[in-house]
């Protein structure tokens, strides 16, 4: 049992190789190289793929590029018939949403608050602009019945649309803390319906404003001088002007241009049944929102100066007559024309007003033409 464990069981002589040591070493190196090749060779394509992985198209990527239309409109079809019905995810909508939340909302808020702050500062520094000469008691006819009806018609629509529009734009930030989510939800739903319903009337109001107020609103050198004198708003620096001053003319053209822009874009948004796609709608929304915010900011100045900012201004639109001293201080060139036409110091006469209303109203009677001078 112990024989095979005896030292004689192990070879005591060194083993003899048939290859010389030098050859054997080379063979060994070749064999090792072959082994390495066999092991590494299958990995080469993977390594190559790894090295060039940016150039290998991922089928999933292509699919999502198609879905998101990154390379342009897709050539897809569906059983659903409708505008852009093959589109699953609309890139334009995302861009519009980003514009709305990142640009329109904050910039609009700064603009509106800035305008209010400016008006408050102006009020503090300048106060209410008074009639320096007091009231003369002499009246001058300024705006006709139709002009005033159309002005207030447009004004009521504008204020309603502005308030409902601002609720839709800023209600989330302002009204939720005040009314709670449920209260805001009801208010926003009402605002949306009201805005969409009253919106289509506004273009007609703008058109009527254009027709009734166009005469006398062309700019001239008097307006340039008026602007250089800051419209006479600074104390002790009166500025001459005709029937309309530079500021009023600017506001008129702003109403026309902004009114057209906001009306066209609003109708595109309100009546989405004429084949306009998301891109057109998004652009219409950008124009509508952007113009509306600027329009509202500008209107704050108009409303301020026409009501509490200037003594004697409001009555021109409420009763159609102004005091002669108001005309002298703010529209001196027009007053001179009216004096020449014998229309200063007239008594408010209902019959006379009706006559004007029925006969020359559509031409206005603020700037005395031949008829007024004859009358």
């Amino acid at each position: 049992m112990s024989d095979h464990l005896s030292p004689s069981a192990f070879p005591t002589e060194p083993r003899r190789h048939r290859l010389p040591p030098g050859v054997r070493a080379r063979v060994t190196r070749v064999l090792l190289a072959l082994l390495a090749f066999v092991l590494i060779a299958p990995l080469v394509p993977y390594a190559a793929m790894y090295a060039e992985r940016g150039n290998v198209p991922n089928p999933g990527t292509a699919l999502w590029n198609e879905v998101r239309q990154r390379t342009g409109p897709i050539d897809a079809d569906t059983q659903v018939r409708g505008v852009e019905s093959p589109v699953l995810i609309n890139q334009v909508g995302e861009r519009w949403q980003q514009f709305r939340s990142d640009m329109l909302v904050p910039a609009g808020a700064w603009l509106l608050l800035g305008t209010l702050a400016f008006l408050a500062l102006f009020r503090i520094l300048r106060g209410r602009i008074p009639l320096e000469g007091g009231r003369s008691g002499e009246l001058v006819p300024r705006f006709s019945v139709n002009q005033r009806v159309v002005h207030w018609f447009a004004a009521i629509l504008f204020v309603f649309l502005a308030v409902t529009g601002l609720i839709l734009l800023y209600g989330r930030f302002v009204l939720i803390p005040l009314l709670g989510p449920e209260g805001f939800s009801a208010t926003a739903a009402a605002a949306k319906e009201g805005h969409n319903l009253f919106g289509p009337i506004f273009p007609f109001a703008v058109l009527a404003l254009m027709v009734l107020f166009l005469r006398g609103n062309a700019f001239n050198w008097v307006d340039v001088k008026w602007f250089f004198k800051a419209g006479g708003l600074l104390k002790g620096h009166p500025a001459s002007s005709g029937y309309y001053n530079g500021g009023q003319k600017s506001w008129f053209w702003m109403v026309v241009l902004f009114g057209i822009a906001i009306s066209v874009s609003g109708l595109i948004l309100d009546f989405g049944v004429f084949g306009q796609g998301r891109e057109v709608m998004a652009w219409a929304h950008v124009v509508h929102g952007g113009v509306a915010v600027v329009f509202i900011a500008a209107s704050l100045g108009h409303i301020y100066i026409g009501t509490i900012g200037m003594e004697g201004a409001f009555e021109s639109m409420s009763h159609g007559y102004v005091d002669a001293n108001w005309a002298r201080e703010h529209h001196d060139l027009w007053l001179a024309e009216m004096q020449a036409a014998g229309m200063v110091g007239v008594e408010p006469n209902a019959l006379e007003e009706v006559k004007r209303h029925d006969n020359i109203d559509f031409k206005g009677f603020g700037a005395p033409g031949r008829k007024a001078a004859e009358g």
Partner: protein
Amino acid sequence: MFLEFVEGPLWYFSVVVFVVGVLWRLWDVFRQPSRTDLALARGSGVPGAVRTVVTRSWTAKGFSRGATFHLVAGYMFHIGLFVLLIFAAPHVKFIEERILGFGWTPAPHWVFMVASDLAFAGLLLLWLRRLMHPVMRKISTFDDHAAAILTFVVMLTGCLALLKSHDSLRAIHMLTVCLLMIYFPFSRLMHAFTFPISRAYTGAAMARKGVNA
């Protein structure tokens, strides 16, 4: 809770006031003694009554220029209001479920929009003209302004509740409707019922005199 109140007890109270009040006002009109016409009638009063009811729907010759605004805005408002009242989908449903027990095909949404825009624009223009026109301003009373404003508010609250998403909006609309129905018989809104009577009376009287009124 509030919606249940305005659509329940307040609604029934308003209907009773409206119906009884309108009947009482009409009875009051018919019971007024008419002046006896001692002259020999030159013809029957009936054709004149019918003709005047129709012809007073537009302005007489010679008055058209001054009355164009009133005519156009008046028809805008009244036609728009009629379509809203009778053919707006929520009204058709309400009439079917709460009043008559049957309904009819409501107007499509675009018709609703056009009608409501006409009604709002017409009423607003008429009311502003009442405020701005020197003669209209002088002959207008509190009743004229109250009726115009109340009608406007009813239309406005109805349109704001159009989404039917919130009971509170519906309740506000129903509340204003109830107020209007209670106010109606005691105001100039009664002209909705009395205008044919007034026209027919004038037309018949003139026809008996041989005058084409």
